[in-house]
C-alpha cells in the first residue's frame, strides 16, 4: 500500500530537517506504556490509520501517566477504522501549541504540477473550509516561490519572528514530496510553540504507486490504493503481477458476502480499465454483487490470465464467473481464452461462466473457450464484440437462475486437478512453471501433439522433447498453454503445463 502511516511520514520529515514531537510507535499496550515512561509527563496516543477525523472517532487520546497510556493503547488497538483494524499506535509528548497551520501538497492534474495548499487554521474539517485555503503553485524546477509563502504568512496573526522558520519548513514539504515521489503530503497541523519552535504535529503521505520500484527504502509491500488492508489473495495477486511484465493484472477484493436483495456474488474478470469498470456497472445493474474487481489487459500472457482466473476462483460463495472488457480489444484474444480454458478445466468449473472476448481474433477465442469447456459441468459461453455488456449481463443472470434451479451449489474453492504423470513424468522448465510430458504415449499421439505445439516440441522415440533451446522454450509459456488446451480438445493427453502461484491453496 502506497499510503504511509503518520509515524512513517514523520520519519521522512525528520530526515528533511523537520522537528516532530518526541515519541515512538507501539503495537502492544506494554510497548505503549514503555514509550510513555521514557517520554515522561503527559502524552498523546494516536491510532495509526488511513483516515481523517481521528479525534472525532476517539482515535486520539491523552494520558497523564504511563499506566493510563497503556490502558488507552489497549482500547485503541482494539478499534477498527472502516475495514482496517488498528495495528499500531503512536505515543508522543504533548507540546504547547501557539499557532496552527494547515499545509498540504498534492498533484494538481489540471496544472500538471504540484500545488501547495496553506491555511492559517489547522485541525479537523479543513476540507470543508476551502475558501480559507491559499493555493501556491510549485514549478518543478524551483518549487514554491518563497515570496508567495511569506506573503501568505504575513496575512496570518503569527509572530513575524517565526516567519522565516515557517517559510523554510513549508518549502521543505515540496522537497520531501519530490525526493520520495509522493502524490500527496499533508501536515495538519504544522504548529509553532511558545518557545519559538516549528513542529510537524501530524503527517499523511501517499507515495506514487508507479514510482515505488525506485523507493525500496520505504518498504512498501503492495503499491496499490485500496480501502482495506491487503488481503491474502491480494498479496498473492500482486506477486503474480510483479513476476510477469507481459500485460497488466489488477485484483482487488470487494465483497465476501452478497448484501440482502443481491442476486448473488460474482467472480468478476474484466479486461481493460474502462471496459472493466463499464462491465462492472453492467453486472451490478443486473442486481449482482461483485466479489472482486479484476482486470487483465495490455496483451497479457495466457499464464497471467490463467493465474487471475485461479485467484478469482479461490473466493468461496460465487454464483458465477463474469468476464467482460471493452469488447473491442486491440489485443489478440485467444491467449486469454487459453488461460481461462485451462483454469476452468483444472477446477472442473461447476458455476456458469459468461465471457465476452470481443476484439482481435474473437472467433478463434470463442471457439477455443467453448470447445475446451464443452465437457465441464458448468455452462461456459463466449461472446464477441457485437454482443453488448448489457445483453451478456442479462444472459449471465438467466444462466445463474437456471443453474440454481438445477441445484448447482455456490462455488467452493477446490484443489486444481492435474494428470497423474505430473511428478513422476519428465518435465521441462518454463517461466513460472514446467511442462510435463505424458510418459504413456504412443508415437502417433506424440506426433499429433508435436503438430499442435507451434514447433516447440518434437517427437523423440515415443515421447516429446523441446524442439528449441531451453532459454527460448522457457519464454514460450503462452504457446505451451495453448498446446495443452488444443491437445485436450483433440482428445489427447500429451502435455500438462504446471504454473506456480506463490501462496495459493
Amino acid at each position, binding site marked *: 500500500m502506497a499510503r504511509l502511516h503518520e509515524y512513517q511520514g514523520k520519519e521522512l520529515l525528520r530526515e528533511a530537517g523537520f522537528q516532530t514531537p518526541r515519541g515512538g510507535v507501539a503495537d502492544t499496550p506494554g510497548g505503549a506504556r514503555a514509550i510513555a515512561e521514557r517520554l515522561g509527563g503527559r502524552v498523546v496516543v494516536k491510532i495509526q490509520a488511513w483516515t481523517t477525523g481521528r479525534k472525532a472517532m476517539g482515535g486520539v487520546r491523552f494520558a497523564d501517566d504511563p499506566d493510563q497510556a497503556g490502558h488507552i493503547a489497549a482500547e485503541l488497538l482494539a478499534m477498527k477504522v472502516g475495514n482496517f483494524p488498528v495495528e499500531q499506535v503512536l505515543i508522543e509528548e504533548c507540546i504547547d501549541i501557539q499557532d496552527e497551520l494547515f499545509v498540504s501538497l498534492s498533484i494538481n*492534474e489540471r496544472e500538471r504540477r504540484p500545488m501547495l495548499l496553506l491555511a492559517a487554521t489547522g485541525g479537523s474539517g479543513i476540507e470543508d473550509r476551502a475558501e480559507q485555503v491559499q493555493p501556491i503553485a510549485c514549478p518543478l524546477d524551483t518549487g514554491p516561490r518563497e515570496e508567495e509563502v511569506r506573503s501568505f504568512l504575513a496575512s496570518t496573526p503569527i509572530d513575524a519572528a517565526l516567519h522565516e522558520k515557517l517559510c523554510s519548513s513549508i518549502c521543505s514539504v515540496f522537497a520531501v514530496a519530490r525526493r520520495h515521489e509522493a502524490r500527496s503530503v499533508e501536515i495538519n497541523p504544522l504548529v509553532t510553540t511558545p518557545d519559538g519552535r516549528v513542529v510537524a504535529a501530524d503527517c499523511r503521505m501517499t507515495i506514487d504507486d508507479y*514510482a515505488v520500484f525506485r523507493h525500496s527504502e520505504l518498504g512498501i509491500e503492495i503499491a496499490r490504493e485500496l480501502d482495506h488492508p491487503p488481503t491474502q489473495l491480494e498479496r498473492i495477486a500482486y506477486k503474480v503481477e510483479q513476476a510477469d511484465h507481459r500485460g497488466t493484472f489488477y485484483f482487488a477484493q470487494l465483497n465476501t458476502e452478497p448484501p440482502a436483495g443481491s442476486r448473488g456474488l460474482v467472480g468478476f474478470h474484466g479486461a481493460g480499465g*474502462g471496459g472493466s*469498470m463499464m462491465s462492472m456497472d453492467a453486472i451490478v445493474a443486473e442486481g449482482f454483487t461483485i466479489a472482486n474487481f479484476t482486470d487483465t489487459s495490455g496483451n497479457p500472457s495466457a499464464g497471467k490470465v490463467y493465474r487471475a482466473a485461479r485467484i478469482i476462483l479461490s473466493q468461496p460463495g460465487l454464483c458465477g464467473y463474469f468476464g467482460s472488457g471493452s*469488447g473491442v480489444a486491440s489485443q489478440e484474444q485467444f491467449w486469454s481464452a487459453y488461460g481461462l480454458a485451462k483454469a476452468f478445466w483444472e477446477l472442473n468449473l461447476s458455476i456458469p461462466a459468461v465471457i465476452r472476448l470481443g476484439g482481435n481474433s474473437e472467433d478463434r477465442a470463442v471457439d477455443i473457450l467453448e470447445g475446451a469447456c464443452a465437457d465441464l459441468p458448468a455452462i461456459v459461453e463466449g461472446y464477441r464484440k457485437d454482443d453488448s455488456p*448489457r445483453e451478456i449481463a442479462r444472459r449471465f443472470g438467466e444462466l445463474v437462475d437456471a443453474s440454481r434451479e438445477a441445484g448447482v451449489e455456490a462455488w467452493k474453492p477446490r484443489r486444481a486437478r492435474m494428470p497423474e504423470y505430473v511428478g513422476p513424468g519428465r518435465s521441462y522448465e518454463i517461466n513460472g512453471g514446467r511442462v510435463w510430458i505424458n510418459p504413456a504415449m504412443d508415437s502417433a499421439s506424440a506426433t499429433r501433439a508435436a503438430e499442435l505445439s507451434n514447433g516447440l516440441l518434437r517427437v523423440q522415440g515415443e515421447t516429446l522433447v523441446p524442439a528449441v533451446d531451453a532459454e527460448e522454450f522457457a519464454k514460450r509459456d503462452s504457446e505451451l498453454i495453448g498446446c495443452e488446451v488444443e491437445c485436450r480438445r483433440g482428445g489427447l493427453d500429451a502435455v500438462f503445463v504446471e504454473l506456480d502461484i506463490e501462496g495459493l491453496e
Partner: protein
Amino acid sequence: MAIIIDETKNVIVQGITGREGQARTQLMLGYGTSVVAGCTPGKAGQEVLGVPVFDTVADAQQHSRHVHGRDVDISVVLVPARFVKNAAIEAIEAGVKMLVLVPDRVPVWDAMEIAACAEKHQARFVGPNTLGVISPGRAVVGMIGGRAESAKAWFKPGRVGVISRSGGMSSSTAYYLGKAGIGTSTICHIGGDSVLGLRIPDVALMFEQDEQTDAIVLFGEIGGSMEEDLAELMRAGRVTKPVVAYIGGKAAKEGTRFSHAGAIIEGGKGTHAGKVKALSEAGAVVVESFGDLPEATGRVLAGQS
C-alpha cells in the same frame, strides 16, 4: 482535417526495434501512417519494416528534413515506462511538437517533468498510458485497433469526435457508433493516468476548431476533474458542438483505485453523480448505459440538421 493525426503527418517511433515498437510500427504503416524514422540508441543503420533507425531523435529529425522535406510532426514513444521521461524530453528538445506516450505505469513526477518541458518548448503530448489516436481512413498513432485490417474494419470515417479515458473503450465507442451508421473524424484516447498531456477539455477545444467534426462523444470515468472542466468550457460557450457522454464507474466505491491511476474517488470528489450533474447542467446528453451512446448520438446529430 481531423485532429492530431492524418496521413500528411511525419511520424517517428522511439523504441522502434523493441517488441512493442515493431508490432505497432507494422500497424501504423499498414494503416497508412507516414512513419519516416525510428530511434533506438545504438541501433543506427538498421531498418524495421523498411523504416530507417537512428540513434537519436535529432538524427531522425535531420533525416525527416532531408528526405521528407519537413520536420517530424509526431513521435510515438514505445520504450519501457521508466525510460519514457528521457525519451520524451529528448524528442521535445529535438523540436518535436506532438508526442504520443503509450506506456503504462510512468511515474507521476516523470509525467510532470515531461509536462514542464513540453510547456517550455510549446510542445504537447497525448498520454501517458494511451492506446493512441486514430483518424479513421487516414492514419493512426499508437496501437488502437491492434492490427491494420482490424482498424480498417472497425472504425468508419465520419463527423463525430471521440474522447476517451479508456483505451479499450475508445475502440468500443467508435465501433458501436460505426455499427449504428455514425462515422468518426478522430478517436483520441487521452490515457488512464492522472497527469496527462492533453486532457478532455484540451481535446474538446481541438474538436471545436475542427471543421470536419460536428459532435463530440465522451467516455468519461470517475476520479479527477476533467469532465467537470469540460462542462465549464461548455457553460462558457467555448465548446459549442453537442456533447454526448457516458461516465463509467457508477458502481465504484470510494478510496479504491479501479485499474486506471486516475480512476479513484477521494475526499468525495470525482464521483459519478457529480460528473453526470455537471455535464448535464452544461447541456451535454449523458446516457445511463454505455449501450445507449449510439442512439443518443444519432438523435443529437439528427437534431442539428
